[in-house]
């Protein structure tokens, strides 16, 4: 269970409050108007933004004082998820050890993860040489080897075409099902939310609302969501 207890997150002149729980293993879409604080919410959970007040709790342990790398979080950003000068294998390997000191076992795991996302035989390519879709797959392979309980995604597939994006969302869903991870994904596209998410967090007017069942929410959208959907 991920708990955000009376959290207040300041980001420049802007503040976001959040007070809710997320059940472990749920796939959640975070939607809302731009500038509303979707990324702020994710950055706070990931540890890039400090809390003004409140607590973030995962599995009974408080997270808010931990460094980003020490939280049970794997994160995919909108862009820049890979180091272009490193190979696919090295990029994935960083998920196991930031010093890239990998033993035989770890090395096998990296290759297996690459194979799992459909990049068999591409391990020695520099990520700058890969296509956008392949780069997303490398990043997902890294998420796999990180074995973190929480997967945070800030519009990670925004640069892909519609068909490719759906493919990646399906892959994420499969991986989450296999690993039992909890996923929070920021998206602009209500279609993504419907396709991918069990529940939806609506971020609007400085508040991140508690998650609601996706189907219910879209059947009977509250005022704020109706305005956003237009």
């Amino acid at each position, binding site marked *: 269970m991920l708990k955000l207890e009376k959290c207040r997150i300041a980001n420049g002149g802007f503040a976001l409050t959040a007070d809710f729980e997320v059940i472990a293993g749920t796939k959640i879409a975070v939607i809302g108007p731009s500038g509303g604080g979707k990324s702020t919410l994710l950055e706070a959970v990931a540890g890039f933004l400090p809390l003004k007040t409140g607590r973030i709790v995962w599995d009974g342990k408080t997270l808010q004082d931990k460094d980003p790398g020490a939280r049970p979080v*794997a994160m995919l950003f909108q862009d820049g998820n890979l*180091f272009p000068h490193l190979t696919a294998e090295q990029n994935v390997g960083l998920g196991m050890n*930031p010093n890239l000191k990998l033993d035989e076992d770890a090395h096998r795991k990296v290759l297996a993860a690459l194979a799992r996302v459909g990049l068999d035989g591409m391990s020695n390519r520099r990520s700058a040489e890969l296509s956008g879709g392949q780069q997303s797959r490398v990043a997902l392979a890294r998420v796999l080897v990180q074995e973190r309980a929480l997967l945070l995604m800030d519009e990670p597939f925004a640069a892909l075409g519609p068909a490719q994006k759906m493919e990646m969302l399906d892959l994420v869903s499969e991986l989450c099902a296999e690993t039992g991870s909890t996923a929070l994904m920021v998206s602009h596209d209500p279609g993504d939310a419907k396709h991918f998410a069990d529940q939806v967090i609506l971020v609007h007017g400085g508040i991140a609302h508690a998650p609601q069942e996706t189907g219910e929410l879209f059947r009977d959208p509250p005022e704020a969501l109706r305005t956003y959907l237009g």
Partner: protein
Amino acid sequence: MADRAQPVSTRWGLGAAALVAALIFGTLVAVAMRAEEGSGLSSSDWAALRFTLVQAVLSAAISVGLAIPVARALARRRFKGRQVLITLMGAPFILPVIVAILGLLEVFGRAGWVSAGLGLIGLPPVRIYGLHGVVLAHVFFNLPLATRLILQGWQEIPAERFRLAAQLGFGARAMLWRIEVPMLRRVVPGVLAVIFAICMTSFAVALTLGGGPKATTVELAIYQAFRFDFDLGRAALLSGVQLVLTGGAALLALRAATGAGFGGGQDRMVHRWDGRGRGARALDFSSIALGAAFLLLPLTAVVLSGLKGLSDLPIQVFSSALISVGVALVSMVLTLLLALPMAVAVALGRDKIGEAAGILGLAASPLVIGTGLFIIIFPFANPTTLALPVTALVNAVMALPFAVRILVPRARQVVVQYTRLSLSLGMVGWPFIRRVLLPRMRAQIGFTAGLAAALSMGDLGVIALFADPEVATLPLQVFRLMGSYQTDAAAGAALILLVLSMGIFWALDRGGRWHAEA
């Protein structure tokens, strides 16, 4: 930003900056304590002060005055080799001063090409020693710099402005007053101030072409007080004077700063509809031709006479070359060890470090630091035995402001781009430096390393102060050969120095870009 986590500590950068500040201020204190207040400035000291100011003002004014037509011509003409010429104008920055001076002597000296030409029509040869020569050499070094900076100003005028001017039918005069003069008014003061500051501290030019009661700069006077009279008190007093001068010049340069820094412009393609008249074309053509000739002829002369001199070089030239390469490499490493942490600290928001590096770099005089170090070392050891390490260190400090300026923009980019990803992967400290920072900055590190090594390679400053007759860097060896009238050998050694300087720059810069992609 202060609240956000950072992938590397700014501690190292602050430490490096503190170290440099300690070196500069420590030597200053040593100098100040040694200076003989009672004696005051003698009449020859006042003359040196006057000469320093006069030559710097003249050098700056002439460099900029000549650069304006050249920059204007380069801005509005497109021709084959234009880009090569602009790149070449960056070369004097890393050209060893002594090499350029040999070249200038070949062309403008008593027995040079110009004098020979004048002799054919019955005119007396030109005089190169004294004020003429010092200013000539300074113009040689700074005309290209001024041209590049002013050209940048021209290129920063938006293309739309020229389109509008063409649409309104601006003639040459309207063009001048509506577009060109306002730009120059903004750019020129900064360029003047920078060149003025550079000429205040240029030691090697005064050492070779100046001298005597009429043409001694303050730095040269420090050197003479040191080498000839071994009068540390007077050297220290003069160092104080020099410090006030360079500090003032540095402040002036920073206040007049144009923001247009070291390095080339974007060189966007701007379509120009003006300047198509015959007069304008002739003016531009001759400006470019004369500017290029002024830059290229002395270099050609060095190469030609150097090739002749290569056949009988004294053995010391080769040992000096080896010493110089060693000093240059050590100095390069020191520069990077100081500049990289500082650049990273600046990129992480410690802006003050960058400013401090800029001010100290412009204000610090190698001769003053050298004098201070000598005073500090003297009670404990024979300073001449430390000549080479001291040279490497002082060269590194001198290269530092340029190094920081080159490294900061890229460091900023890397930090902005990869901080979150690295933190989320727990890549903090050494893993971040090794896997992200250094590989992403390779090209800039290579360029900086090349610059630092080449600057050190060609330096003829503090080494002249410290060296004993046994040990010499290659520039000092060239200077000694010139002094003993072994002209051919000097030219040959200068050619080796030129090749080594350019080669070391090329190799390091190239090494940084090798396989560096994306």
